[in-house]
């Protein structure tokens, strides 16, 4: 049973079409990723799901309800972490959690949440004095303090260092294990690959694919990449003539030959025939990154 259904969502700001045509469904208990480059329309999409924006077209259903008409009911059941939302500088961690808890009919225990999110020592620290990672953890705690069935997390780890990012990922997995359905908005491939059960790839306001990370990778023509350092000058054409090869790139002293099928064997034969030795030879398989390039025709940029 899907808990969220988005059908042909359309939203514009003046002349700018932020969301052109977006459809997807989210199943109970999964981590559903919304992946795409900056400006793709991810935030607008999830803000329509959260009832913060009115769609110009299409349908949104959350837990069987309309986010606009049944806003009051849904606010009790959906926790939201907004991109770029802050708290008053002087508000302390404990105060923030207790205040937000008091808004809900059946809140989670703020003290327990603080412990779970490693904020115990920061209980009396004002918001202003928190580190980026601590602010994000507080933000997650506030999204969970209403004990929601669904939580929407928008660009949770943007701006965090790799260490803090990994800690946050573990947190999100623990939230899922409690049975909360999670919509995770991100533009990090690694994050999507590691956390999401399924994800929607969004580009320029449109969904280009919905699948599991592995499914997406499988879906694109499997790319093989052979990377090596030739012992002597070698002409690109020797490789581009091969039927298996699609592109030849050079980075530094390295040659990167990509294609499908048995690229490694084809390249090795050419090198042997020309008596060239390949140093640092490596074979790389396609990743979600490649899938993204294949689906959208461009690389996601940070």
């Amino acid at each position, binding site marked *: 049973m899907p808990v969220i259904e988005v059908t042909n969502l359309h939203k514009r700001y003046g002349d700018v079409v932020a969301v052109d045509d977006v459809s997807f469904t989210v199943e109970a208990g999964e981590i559903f990723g919304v992946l795409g480059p900056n400006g793709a329309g991810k935030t607008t999409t999830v803000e329509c799901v959260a009832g*913060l924006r009115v769609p110009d077209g299409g349908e949104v259903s959350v837990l069987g309800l309309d986010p606009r008409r049944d806003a009051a009911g849904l*606010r009790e059941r959906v926790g*939201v972490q*907004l991109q770029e939302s*802050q708290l*008053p500088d002087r*508000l302390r961690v404990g105060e923030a959690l207790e*205040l937000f808890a*008091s808004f*809900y009919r059946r809140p989670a225990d703020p003290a327990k949440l603080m412990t779970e999110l490693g904020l115990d020592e920061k209980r009396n620290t004002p918001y202003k004095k928190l580190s980026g990672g601590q602010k994000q953890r507080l933000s997650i705690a506030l999204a969970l303090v209403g004990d929601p069935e669904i939580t929407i997390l928008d660009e949770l780890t943007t701006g965090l260092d790799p260490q803090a990012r990994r800690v946050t990922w573990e947190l999100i997995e623990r939230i899922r294990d409690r049975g909360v359905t999670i919509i995770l908005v991100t533009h990090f491939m690694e994050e999507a690959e590691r956390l999401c059960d399924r994800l929607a790839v969004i580009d320029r306001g449109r969904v280009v694919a919905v699948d599991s990370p592995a499914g997406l990778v499988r879906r694109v023509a499997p790319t093989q990449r052979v990377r090596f350092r030739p012992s002597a000058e070698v002409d690109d054409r020797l490789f581009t003539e091969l039927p298996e090869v699609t592109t030849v790139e050079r980075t530094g002293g390295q040659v990167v030959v990509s294609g499908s099928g048995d690229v490694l064997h084809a390249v090795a034969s050419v090198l042997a025939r020309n008596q060239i030795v390949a140093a640092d030879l490596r074979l790389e398989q396609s990743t979600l990154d490649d899938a993204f390039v294949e689906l959208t025709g461009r690389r996601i940029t940070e």
Partner: protein
Amino acid sequence: MKGNDMRGFGQLLRVETRLYLRDVGTMLATVGLPTLVLVVLGLVPALRRPDPTFDGQTFVSYFAPSLLVVTVAVAGLNVLPTMLATYRERGVLRRLATTPASPAALLAAQLVITLAAIVASAVLLVVVGRLAFGVPLPRHPLGFAAAFVLGTAALLALGLLVAAVARTAKAAQALMAPLFLLIMFFGGVYLPRFLLPDLLVRIGDYTPPGVQALLDSWTGTPPQPLHLAIMTGIAVLAGAGAAKLFRWE
């Protein structure tokens, strides 16, 4: 965005009050500054002597209503709009809108705190003036209360109107600065009004919060109905404009 109910008002008022009291600098500027100026002036003996220029009042008594203008202007035109614009800019109002609490409740809590600060400041000024420098208590208490309430309402409504249209705290302050200077000038804060040309004094009568009505009722004359009516009109118009234009994001 929906903001027509008041869920969370009580809790927000409590927490916002705590935050307000924590910001000692702002609190002293709103509540304490006018009384501080009064004390400094009152320490000059010449300003405590009755003077025919002021119908036989002392300068300190004559100037006290202008100090009330300072309170209302700082709290209503500076602190409140900056606060609201900051909350909007930082996404606090939107964040609240995703919870069962209403962002309108936060706005209401801020208004209540601002009013409380203004009243506290006025009481402090009147009491210290009376005890330390013999400034008489307002002689027409009802008229004084009416002039004070309506004048404050007019200025707060103007402040909310600015907060409604300014996108950021910086923009709010930029819009507010000239308005603030005008209000203070016409309220006789920078130059005591007896030094101003007659025309400017007349304009000042109708500039919120209406320093002449405050002075009249303080010295025992009932405030002129026209003065009060103008304040009411400004409060209603600016308030309606603010309600219509206010954005939560």
